[in-house]
């Protein structure tokens, strides 16, 4: 069962989605096997031998009503600095391969720049890296973050691939609609792609360092800032990662004020 809480990407709708999923877990509704929140929805996986569709719908409506109308005012929020090589050779090669084998297309960064009124690919990379991102959900592939730009001036939009790629390199950074993701493993994908990070965001062996969870770098409510780097820096970090010596750059002493954010976002909205 898919519970829809809105058709927009906003902090407030995301608070409701995360809040409802948490309420479902805390209420331990009999027969509910999983509650997976994303930007504006919660997917419920349930055992229909234990709870029927109609009963579940009633139960969820009740939980949604009793949930606080507003999300939390202040919450702890980690800030991750993720180095990113924009306009990198790997996503270019991936696009060229797709264009040769599946459907013709140009480089994604150029297309996104054109449709969002930006000068060129470099200008797009500058705007994409100029905001903090809100981690709205984890899902899709293990540890993969779905993120939205917190600075309204950096809200871009890109149509998703038609048809999707059958392969995307691990660490690729992509934009689909107004959602930014980091591909946590090599996988199919539909987002437009234009950058890559050498920093692993998922480790099956539990080898992540400098973050609380050795398997999953990010969690909902975290923020991400991309640090544009050059190829030499990419290779240097990549070597440290491979040697098991890379520590994530994480700030863990911030409190995120939703109220102050709303006020600020209004003052800078284009």
């Amino acid at each position, binding site marked *: 069962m898919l519970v829809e809480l809105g058709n927009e990407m906003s902090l407030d709708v995301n608070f409701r989605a995360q809040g409802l999923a948490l309420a479902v877990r805390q209420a331990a509704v009999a027969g509910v096997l999983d509650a997976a929140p994303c930007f504006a929805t919660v997917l419920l996986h349930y055992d229909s031998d234990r709870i029927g569709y109609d009963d579940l719908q009633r139960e969820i409506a009740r939980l949604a009503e009793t949930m606080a109308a507003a999300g939390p005012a202040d919450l702890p929020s980690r800030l991750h600095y993720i180095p990113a090589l924009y306009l990198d050779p790997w996503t270019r090669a991936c696009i060229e391969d797709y264009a040769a084998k599946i459907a013709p297309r140009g480089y994604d960064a150029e297309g996104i720049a054109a449709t969002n009124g930006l000068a060129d690919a470099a200008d797009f990379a500058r705007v994409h890296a100029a905001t903090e991102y809100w981690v709205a959900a*984890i*899902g*899709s*592939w293990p540890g993969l973050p779905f993120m939205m730009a917190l600075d309204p001036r950096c809200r871009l939009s890109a149509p998703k*691939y038609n*048809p999707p790629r059958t392969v995307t390199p691990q660490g690729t950074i992509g934009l689909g609609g107004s*959602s930014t993701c980091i591909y946590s493993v090599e996988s199919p994908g539909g987002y437009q792609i234009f950058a890559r990070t050498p920093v692993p965001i998922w480790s099956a062996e539990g080898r992540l360092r400098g973050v609380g969870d050795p398997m999953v770098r990010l969690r909902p409510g975290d923020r991400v800032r991309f640090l544009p780097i050059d190829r030499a820096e990419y290779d240097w970090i990549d070597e440290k990662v491979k040697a098991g010596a890379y520590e994530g750059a994480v700030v863990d002493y911030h409190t995120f004020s939703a109220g102050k954010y709303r006020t600020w976002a209004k003052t800078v909205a284009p």
Partner: protein
Amino acid sequence: MISVMKSGLQTSVQDYPGRIGHMSLGFPPSGPFDSWSFRLANLLVGNPGTAAGIECQFLGPTLRFEAPAVFAVCGADMSAKLDGVPLERWRSLEAKAGQVLEFGAAKTGARTYIAVSGGLDVPVFLGARATFQKASVGGVGGRALKPGDRIAMLPASSDARAGREVRAEARPPLDGVRRWTVDVVAGPHDDWLAPEAIAMFLSSPWKLSGKSDRTGFRLEGPPFAFAAKATDKPPENGSDPSNIIDFGYPIGGINLAGQTPIILVSDALTMGGFICPFTVPTSSFWQLAQSRPGDLYDFNLLSVGDAQTARQRLDALCTVDSLL
């Protein structure tokens, strides 16, 4: 212990129902694609239907039993032989230490399941032994089997014996089928399609593309027309009519990516930003699992209630009552 001599094509250890409850970490259920055949194989050897066994795809492996075991082979016909002697599917058999179980290519259907009494003993990750290769977890080293792998077995049930057989009427009718009638339920995004596109989807045969695997089954067929909801929407959805703000994908969802329908099967991604106008109930997964590229699907619309009844009927067949 079982030794892998030849790996076959993407042969993996799976358990049923797989890794449930971790979609918000990005984990699909994995598990056997045709859980009907898988559960029957387990029941034949005295296991609960859930125990870890082996899934073979299109081309089976060659395995050596390092210890005596009761085993069973269910699903597609891959010309299984024990020490060179052809053996029958759908029955429990005995292997002596040192005997070699060998498979060829699937003659009919696509996936074959091997159960051994006691079940396979591989580490449990997030509550399941099922292999999920995309994340390199579960099964043997989080990957498909390789020559030289040695897989431990849990102690056999005292109930294990050769000579059991699945009743003919309790077996999935997979042999020789190349055109399948597959159930679907409407939603969650059927209202993003134009009414004529819903009619078109339900009346057209859909061809299974060769670019299909346990992460997704791509279909080929006519293009879709969309409702206003798909074209008149906020930009954060993405401009293509099939684009939506990312959401949790239902297991079995028929994802419409641009104009390509992709059925989200056992190892599919758990969230994404393409609409799912229809969903294949898990009771029909065995048909997907046993079909081959080029096969045709005709989709049959069911209510959610009827799909749940179909699942209960299938579960009722996956019990010891189905054995002779």
